[in-house]
């Protein structure tokens, strides 16, 4: 591994921290020698108190250390120590997961913190032959005020194994064993004259052993990075900021039977101007970044896909380069009841691959937005929004002399919202939005040019009668045009118009009884633009549906809640068969369907920490199809589930917690499979903090 040069830095950081901690500990130890009887008494008191274990012992030692000077003595090395073991089980229809965690926190002298984390988990999948095992361990040290800069040292080890067996009995094993050590040093507010700086340094070592589809995939890396961020206040409310970032990594990668060195270099330079005065805020920022990486990879084709049909899976040494530039300018201004926000952004990036068939990829993106809002009373307002988005991407395949051509996407959106109190208890909301999305392929390198135009508008009236009875009425209209431009695809071009009306009410009949009903009627017309054109068989159609949902909620006592609901929906689809000389269209029904569902749910809170619950539904689905083959189908289905919820904490400061949600499901009907006819669902955990 080529990281030997980093080791002395890591060793220095750790040993300095340990030495400083050790000297603090020595001072604390010497101060406890003076009064053994008093210490014994305190420790006895601590063991009789409600708190126990390590926390009490350290508290007693801390008190003893402070005896001579009534709190003026040096702080003990170990101020507090908490342990939090947790174990649990989560079961869903997809998988069952077993897990156990142990987290240990130590607060040290000078506000340093040490955290150790151990965890183990196993997932067993119910519907496929698949198991996943995971083990993780980590140690995190935060320096606090121990050093003149913020220090974080972290070491971790993670192991996981994913074993999946397909329908042919073939096993795919994905295994990963990863070790990592890192050091972070940072310090803010370093002043040089009027300029304030922040300095950030990071060094890490990674060692990963991996296996996938029978092939080795090992990576060893040492990474060093650093950043400097500077800020200067030019005038009141006006600040200029810059940032510089540099990263370098070196190591080895083993892929299959091939091993090769890998390196990466990256840097970024950014700056910005920030202004804030009164109700006006403005910011402008620009960032340029560059990145270069050399590594082993599988051979990839022009779309970046591993080309498995070549002679074996060829492994190549890839050289990847990326450059990116981004600019952003945002303004916000508020004056009395008027607010204006504007936004402009540009992002450009290039990716170049020396070996991969991808070659050179370019991306460009511009965005412009504006919001205008006027609040003319405490509850009334009008808002306008406009956004324009334009992007293109291009690619020059490896070995090609000219680029593929730009694939361009353009989008424009306009929104208007008016919220108005019409009467004392009635509010109205008007919404209108229009959007046009357009895709172009330069030089027609594909036939996918298309436009999508959408209009969405609605009016909603809500009335709160005497603060209890509530009604609402919503009217909406939606128009969608899907247009393919090229002649090879335009036969399916269509326009859809949807009209919908939704009245509803909520009526609290009594403190223990609520009634709610919502009714929805909707019709959608689909007009195929080229219907009747030679070679086009698509016929215009419509579909309409109505839905009535009724819900009754009963609360006979504070512990018991019962909800009964009924949902009835009717749907009709029809296609146009002919148009007469007067232009009148005639439709034939294709489908009629009626679905009726009744639901019952019960919740009983037996105690503050224990709740019983259950629910059941039954559905009747009656379906008639017409046309050349008419048929009627009547199906019934249903489900019942029973369960409980437990959440109980006890002990000093409620440091022990048991939480569990368990449900048993029983289902029936033509769609029910063996795996979900009867199964249990659970989320259970036990946590203890001491």
């Amino acid at each position: 591994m080529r990281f030997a040069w980093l080791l002395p830095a890591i060793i220095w950081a750790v040993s300095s921290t340990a030495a400083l901690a050790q000297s603090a500990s020595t001072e604390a130890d010497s101060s406890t020698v003076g009064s053994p009887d008093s210490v014994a008494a305190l420790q006895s008191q601590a063991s009789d108190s409600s708190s126990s274990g390590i926390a009490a012992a350290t508290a007693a030692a801390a008190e003893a250390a402070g005896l001579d000077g009534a709190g003026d003595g040096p702080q003990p090395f170990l101020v507090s120590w908490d342990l939090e073991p947790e174990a649990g089980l989560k079961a869903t229809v997809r998988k069952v997961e077993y897990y156990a965690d142990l987290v240990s926190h130590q607060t040290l002298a000078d506000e340093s913190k040490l955290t150790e984390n151990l965890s183990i988990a196993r997932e067993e999948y119910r519907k496929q032959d698949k198991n996943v095992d995971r083990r993780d361990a980590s140690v995190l040290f935060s320096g606090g005020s121990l050093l003149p800069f913020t220090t974080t040292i972290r070491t971790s080890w993670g192991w996981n194994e994913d074993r999946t067996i397909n329908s042919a009995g073939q096993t795919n094993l994905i295994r990963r064993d990863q070790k990592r050590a890192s050091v972070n040093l940072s310090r803010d507010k370093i002043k040089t004259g009027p300029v304030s700086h922040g300095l950030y340094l990071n060094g890490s070592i990674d060692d990963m052993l991996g296996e996938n589809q029978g092939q080795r995939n090992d990576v060893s890396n040492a990474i060093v990075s650093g950043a400097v961020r500077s800020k200067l206040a030019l005038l009141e409310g006006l600040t200029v900021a810059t940032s510089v970032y540099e990263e370098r990594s070196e190591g080895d990668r083993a892929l299959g039977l091939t091993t090769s060195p890998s390196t990466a270099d990256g840097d970024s330079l950014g700056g910005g101007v920030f202004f804030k005065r009164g109700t006006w805020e403005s910011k402008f920022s620009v960032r340029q970044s560059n990145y270069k990486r050399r590594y082993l990879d599988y051979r990839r084709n022009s779309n970046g896909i591993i080309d498995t049909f070549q002679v074996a899976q060829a492994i190549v040494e890839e050289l990847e380069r990326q450059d990116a530039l981004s600019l952003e300018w945002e303004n916000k201004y508020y004056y009395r009841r008027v607010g204006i926000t504007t936004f402009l952004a540009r992002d450009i990036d290039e990716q170049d691959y020396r070996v991969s068939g991808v070659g050179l990829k370019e991306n460009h993106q511009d965005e412009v937005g504006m919001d205008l809002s006027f609040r003319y009373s405490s509850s009334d307002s009008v808002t306008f929004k406009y956004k324009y988005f334009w992007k293109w991407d291009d690619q020059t395949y490896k070995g090609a002399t000219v680029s593929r051509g730009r694939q361009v996407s353009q989008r424009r959106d306009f929104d208007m919202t008016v919220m108005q109190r019409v009467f004392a208890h009635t509010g109205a909301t008007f919404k209108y939005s229009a959007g046009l999305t357009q895709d172009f392929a330069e030089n027609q390198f594909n036939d996918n040019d298309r436009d999508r135009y959408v209009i969405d508008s609605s009016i909603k009236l809500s009335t709160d009668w005497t603060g209890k009875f509530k009604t609402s009425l919503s009217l909406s209209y939606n128009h969608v045009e899907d247009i393919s431009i090229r002649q090879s695809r335009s036969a399916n071009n269509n326009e859809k118009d949807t009209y919908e009306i939704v009245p509803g009410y909520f009526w609290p009949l009594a403190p223990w009884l609520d009634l709610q009903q919502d009714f929805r009627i909707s019709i959608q017309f689909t007009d195929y633009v080229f219907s009747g054109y030679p070679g086009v068989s698509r016929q215009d159609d419509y579909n309409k549906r109505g839905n009535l949902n009724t819900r009754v909620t009963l609360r006979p006592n504070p512990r018991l809640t019962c909800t009964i609901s009924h949902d009835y929906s009717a749907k009709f689809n029809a296609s146009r068969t002919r148009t007469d000389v007067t232009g009148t269209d005639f439709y034939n029904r294709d489908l009629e369907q009626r679905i009726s569902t009744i639901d019952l749910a019960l919740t009983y809170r037996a105690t503050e920490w224990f709740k019983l619950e259950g629910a059941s539904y039954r559905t009747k689905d009656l379906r008639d199809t017409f046309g050349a083959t008419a048929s009627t189908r009547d199906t019934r289905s249903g489900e019942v589930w029973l369960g409980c919820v437990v959440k109980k904490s006890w002990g000093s400061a409620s440091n022990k917690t048991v939480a569990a949600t368990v449900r048993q499901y029983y289902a029936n009907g033509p769609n029910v499979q063996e795996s979900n006819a009867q199964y249990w669902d659970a989320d259970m955990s036990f946590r203890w903090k001491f």
Partner: protein
Amino acid sequence: MRDSIQRRAGVFQTVVTLLALAAYLPLLTGCLFKPRTPEPPTGAEIVYLPRGEVPNILANLETALKNLDIAGYDDAIGENFVYLPDSQTKNDYPAVDWANWDREQELAFAGNMFDNISALQANLRDTDIRVDIGSGTEVEWEVIYLLEQTSSDGSVTKYRGGVEIIFRQIGSFWYIDSWEDLQGEPDPDTGAALTSMGGLRGAFASK
């Protein structure tokens, strides 16, 4: 004095409401943006089956894939669509945000793929494991699919995988609500292990 101020405030609110309506109503009948005029169709149309039956939805998705037609793909995917990758896909493309893969991500992937590949052969019901008639508003299927994708440089890549699909009925039509790739399956011709089409999603995912 107070009555006068309140009356003026009430008049002001009424005027603003009427002005907002005056701006709103013409927008309903007008056309703020104008789409392009399409070329009249030539050649065969892409035939999609009625969306009132569950098997037709998967057949329509297959048709959309074969014809690289994003409009047909859009019609098959529901508003609350989620994609759940298999372990191999997550391992091969760890930088993709799989946890938030929704309808927008799915359509961006499909559009990107259709714009950049030459051809796609698809058989989404290569093997039926569990298929049901549509009833109520939710149906679950498990099938094995087979895809052959031809890249722009002429190279051909095969994908075969087991998938669990949840279909949901919204209004009058069925849609695919969830697509969970389970694992790769062997090549029917050679027996070699293939990956699921999660690899295509990883390669063409929007950044």
